[in-house]
């Protein structure tokens, strides 16, 4: 679980990009003096107390809860019973499969688009760079509920703007939100609309720090645009691509707001995510024990995927 921790002795594989510069080195005497003082602990104490009460404690108690069956407000210890039930629960596997599809399709497409966008935004050929940079970041500012509502109206099968426009060119109507496959596509479109610009802006900041000499050297060697991109731009982006990939993976696995507002998990559970399924079990059926088991399965998944990503993408570090 600590694999994606940006700093800390337990995470030797942490990416360079996320590692802060070492603290200033001061003379030994001053350092000793500072160590004796309570000041540093007082600065971090409020955060630690709040974190302990509202994060660490619930993390622990959630695990205990996951070993119990909740019935009519009473808890019965059943050991791994909830986890066994999870393995036999077709809806859980459906949610897992839907999330995997988004991970395998939407995240790579979005990161590729974001990389292309970042390269375009970084180009000296572009007029009005700052306007574009701002414009593409704007969707990120919009709340998930707000854009979920807008997309659900835009994509309405009978009256939405999208199908009206398609009808102008003789296509459609597309059952955006009412057909299982199209609902998945709509969800992917909404997610891509929301997060591509944000990822592009992060990648752009990294691009701007790739030394110009590397490009000059590539030009001298006669490398074309595509080869320069493959051999100079992409390696330069690697640590930040890793960061965005990990963040997108975590975000996708936790996905809740968009499917909840856009499709409610339907049709036919096609957009049921682990997050939505957990919510349904906890706050619709009040099966807290089972919901906690789902949450823990999710946490383990995030840990495993995070580790794999660091291994695969971070190996050349």
């Amino acid at each position: 679980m600590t694999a994606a921790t940006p700093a800390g002795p337990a995470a030797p594989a942490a990416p360079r990009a996320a590692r802060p510069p070492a603290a200033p080195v001061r003379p030994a005497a001053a350092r000793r003096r500072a160590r004796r003082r309570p000041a540093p602990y007082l600065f971090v104490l409020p955060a630690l107390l709040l974190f302990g009460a509202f994060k660490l404690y619930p993390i622990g108690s959630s695990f205990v809860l996951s070993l119990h069956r909740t019935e009519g407000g009473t808890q019965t210890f059943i050991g791994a019973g909830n986890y066994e039930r999870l393995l036999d629960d077709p809806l859980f596997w459906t949610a897992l499969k839907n999330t995997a599809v988004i991970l395998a399709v939407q995240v790579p497409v979005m990161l590729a688009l974001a990389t292309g966008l970042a390269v375009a935004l970084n180009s000296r050929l572009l007029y009005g760079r700052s306007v574009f940079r701002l414009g593409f970041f704007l969707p990120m500012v919009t709340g998930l509920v707000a854009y979920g509502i807008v997309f659900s109206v835009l994509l309405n099968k009978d009256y939405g703007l999208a199908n009206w426009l398609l009808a102008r060119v003789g296509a459609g109507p597309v059952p955006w939100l009412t057909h299982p496959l199209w609902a998945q596509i709509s969800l992917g479109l909404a997610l891509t609309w929301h997060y591509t610009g944000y990822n592009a802006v992060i990648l752009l900041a990294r691009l701007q720090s790739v030394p110009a000499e590397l490009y000059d050297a590539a030009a001298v060697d006669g490398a074309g645009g595509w080869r320069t991109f493959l051999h100079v731009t992409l390696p330069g982006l690697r640590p930040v691509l890793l960061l965005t990939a990990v963040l997108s993976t975590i975000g996708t696995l936790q996905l809740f707001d968009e499917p909840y507002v856009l499709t409610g998990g339907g049709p036919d559970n096609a957009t049921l995510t682990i997050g939505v399924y957990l919510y349904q079990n906890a706050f619709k059926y009040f099966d807290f024990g089972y919901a906690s088991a789902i949450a823990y399965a999710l946490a383990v998944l995030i840990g495993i995927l995070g580790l794999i990503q660091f291994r695969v993408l971070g190996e050349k570090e």
Partner: protein
Amino acid sequence: MTPAVPPGARRRARSLLLTSGLAITLAVVAIPFYWLAVGATHSSEEIFSSPPPLLPGGHLADNLKSLEESAQFSRVLLNSLLISTVYTVCAGAVCTLAGYGFAVYRFRGREALFGLLMLGLVVPAQVTLVPLFQMMADLSWLGTYQAVVLPNLALPFGIFLMRQSMASLPPSLLDSGRMDGCGELRLFLRVALPPMRPSLAALAIFLFLYQWNDFIWPLIVLRDGASFTLPVALASLQGLDETDYGAILAGTSIAALPMAAVFLALQRHFVSGLLAGAVKE
């Protein structure tokens, strides 16, 4: 930096091609924003008529009135403003103090404690939902503002951002402050904070947006319409049988467009401050 480019007319042509290509893409990205503003000024029937409305209509006042009747909208707006402001101030203080502590001091357990906090970035929020809900129920805090605000005050990303920014403080600056006999708290307030203004602005915008848009947690702990925040109220309207989409889109505009405006006004701080924290080598 960017590769060298061919001179003259060819360069101009490629420039225009790239710029117009991106402009078209941006226009497509902007459609939902435009359409949101247009939809807010139409009635539900107009929105779902064919062809759909493409220009602003005259129904905005009616939509707002209907929002007020069905969702106590002015109260909801006030809730959101109040909760987001209080959250921004409190979480800002907690994150800044912690970020400073972790960035400028060396102390026993520093890396371990920081690593523990960063665990919050990887453990999914869903893991804590149920126990937190039970905790709030046991404290009889369901439906209260503190139930919304308290659990997320020590936001790991905020602490991470502040530690990254504070690490750029020159040690000589702090040392000279100590030479002048500054206490550690005064040093923090008078010497360390002033040059951090851009990062603090970025943190404040980030925290405000986070709370303003947060959905699942307020949805769980807030009970009745009078205490709802904007996203919860809007989502609850959508669930009704006779959904008034004109009213919903008017409310959604009010939730989304001012945030976009604030962001536009302060973006210089936001993007640079956020990036300074996010991708510093």
